[in-house]
């Protein structure tokens, strides 16, 4: 129980910290967004600046009221954000939470699937490599993986886009579903969604499964060298049981920590990936916001992506205690 409280507390604290950083960036730093927005608004009103109106607008967009003392601004901002109010987009003139709320499921879908596929492939490959440790297959797979790992995912994305998207036109080059398809629970819709996600997911998977495979290979090799495995064989247990309950289970457990680390990496990467594939997720909107200097959206995306990661890690961490008896109730390190 203690452990749960601790972990949840830590997660909330992390989100809190990010929101604070975001407040600091918006408000406190000279030349920061709030100041810029203000200057912009004053300029827009061409001399006839109605300071009160400007301040109101600034507050509407950023949740910050420039006329109040800093600490009050801070409290207001925090309260607003934790109530789900991320301000209003300058560009779309819509609440940020509405825009991003629409986009978030797509990002989670894209990145979650990539992560899942990449882990499945990596674990399977790693296990096979460990089994044939030292063979030609092992050596060449290792070299191949190092090479794949050297490719940035966005380069893989562009290459895939170039060949399969533009040259051969096998896959669509952007969007999250076909233009003629209505979002519904129909097969056609799902088909279209999957079809549109193939390239982004592939570019992520191709460049990331190798790391998992290498880690899995190492784990499996060390489990194979353990005494308890030898004893299990001596005990005359059936091979199936040894493979599943001894080797697989113990080699997979440490991978869970790797999964937690990857959540952050993958979600962070969504910004670049979604831009390349014009895939309307949080990252895409974040990128658009850069061009239009739409600070509320920018900050909102940062907060939202962090929250998604924190929740992902929290779930992973809390379930870890369920599957590994050794950490149950203990003061375990997060990573």
């Amino acid at each position, binding site marked *: 129980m203690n452990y749960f409280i601790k972990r949840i507390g830590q997660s909330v604290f*992390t989100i809190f910290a990010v929101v604070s950083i975001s407040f600091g*960036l918006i408000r406190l730093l000279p030349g920061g967004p709030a100041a810029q927005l203000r200057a912009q608004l004053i300029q827009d009103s061409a001399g006839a600046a109605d300071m009160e109106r400007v301040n109101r607008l600034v507050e509407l967009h950023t949740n910050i009221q420039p006329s109040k003392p800093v600490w009050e601004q801070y409290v207001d901002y925090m309260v607003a954000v934790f109530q789900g109010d991320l301000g209003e987009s300058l560009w779309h003139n819509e609440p940020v939470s509405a825009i991003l709320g629409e986009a978030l499921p797509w990002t989670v879908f894209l990145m979650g699937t990539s992560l899942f596929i990449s882990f499945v492939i990596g674990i399977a490959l790693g296990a096979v490599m460990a089994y044939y440790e030292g063979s030609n297959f092992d050596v060449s797979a290792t070299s191949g993986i*190092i090479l794949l790992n050297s490719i940035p995912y966005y*380069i893989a994305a*562009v290459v895939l*886009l170039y060949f399969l998207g533009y040259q051969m036109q096998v896959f669509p080059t952007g969007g999250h579903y076909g233009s003629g398809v209505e979002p519904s629970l129909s097969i056609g819709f799902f088909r279209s969604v999957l079809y549109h996600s193939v390239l982004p997911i592939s570019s992520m998977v191709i460049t990331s499964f190798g790391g998992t495979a290498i880690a899995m290979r190492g784990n499996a090799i060390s489990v194979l060298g353990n005494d308890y495995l030898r004893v299990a064989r001596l005990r005359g247990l059936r091979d199936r049981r040894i493979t599943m309950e001894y080797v697989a289970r113990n080699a997979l457990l440490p991978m869970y920590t790797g999964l937690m680390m990857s959540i952050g990496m993958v979600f962070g990467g969504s910004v670049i990936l979604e831009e390349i594939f014009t895939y309307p997720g949080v990252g895409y909107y974040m990128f658009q916001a850069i061009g239009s200097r739409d600070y509320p959206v920018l900050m909102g995306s940062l907060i939202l992506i962090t929250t998604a990661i924190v929740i992902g890690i929290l779930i992973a961490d809390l379930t870890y205690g369920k599957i590994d008896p050794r950490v149950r109730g203990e003061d375990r390190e997060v990573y």
Partner: protein
Amino acid sequence: MKSTDTKTDGGTDIDHDLFDSGSDVELARSEQLSNAFTEYVYAPVMILWDDWRARIGSLIILGYLLMGTIGVILVEPATLHEGPRLEGVFEGTEFLLGTDILGRDLFAMIVHATPAMLQMIIAGGVFTTVVATIIGTVSGYKGGVLDRVLMTVSDIALTIPGLPLVIVIVVIFPPQHPVTVGILLSINAWAGLARALRSEVLAVREESYVEASRTMNVPTRVILTKDIIPNLMPYIMVNFVGAARGVIFGSVGLYFLGILPFTTLNWGVILNMAYTQGGSLYTLETIHWFLAPMITIILLSYGLILFAQGMDRVFNPRIRARHVQDDAGTEDTEDDGQIQTTVTEQI
């Protein structure tokens, strides 16, 4: 085994020369220097050379270093319309990698982007490892409240997604100098390493030899640098390389998308131009414009990974001892010894 005869003159005065060896073991200064050279330069280089991965990795990195230093002097900067538009790879002898849409030599552009890139990488790598080493070792060695605070901060830094945070900061404060870019890009890359180092320090500080040093009243500073940090070197090196790759991937990505200001030439900038101006996606004609910087990046990253794997060996005293001894002409029995231990373990 024991020399019992020495015991006969055994006074209790230990500053007596009883324990001073008769032979003159003083080494000439030059000899000391050459010993140091063997231990710190020659042996590591030989170990790296021994492993094909490390050998290739070092060669690749050396190549890039040369490109960023001497290359800049040898190769003239690219100028507009110095060659035909969009000449392909190896089509002429003058422009090996071809030219871009404005007739600039791609090879020259890549070479001249190297110094800034190297500065960025080194800045990011050094920043990450130094911050992580300080936080990790202090946190692990001192413990207590300081440890808790530092680790909570690390946990938060670890959770905040690096790229989005960097993007936000970069948008608000566009960095100019490559060094600033490098540091900004690794703004939270230290956290993972700091955590790993801390747990390693926690393990090492419980080792008997660290306790022995403490008991001998060896200053904390010396314990940290001599007893603890050497054990962390493999982690630090591997993570230095990891951080360097992070900077390469991050910077190229952000330049590529045009998020970072084009104050300096960068491989990512070339990619960006190929993508946006050359329309590389739609025609085969400009593919080399895109491929050239791409391969440059992949090759460096490949070299760094190989190098990191080799460095792991340099810090392994078992392997190092073998090389120092080899040089001294001592018989090399280590290989046999190792095989033997693995066998005797099974007996």
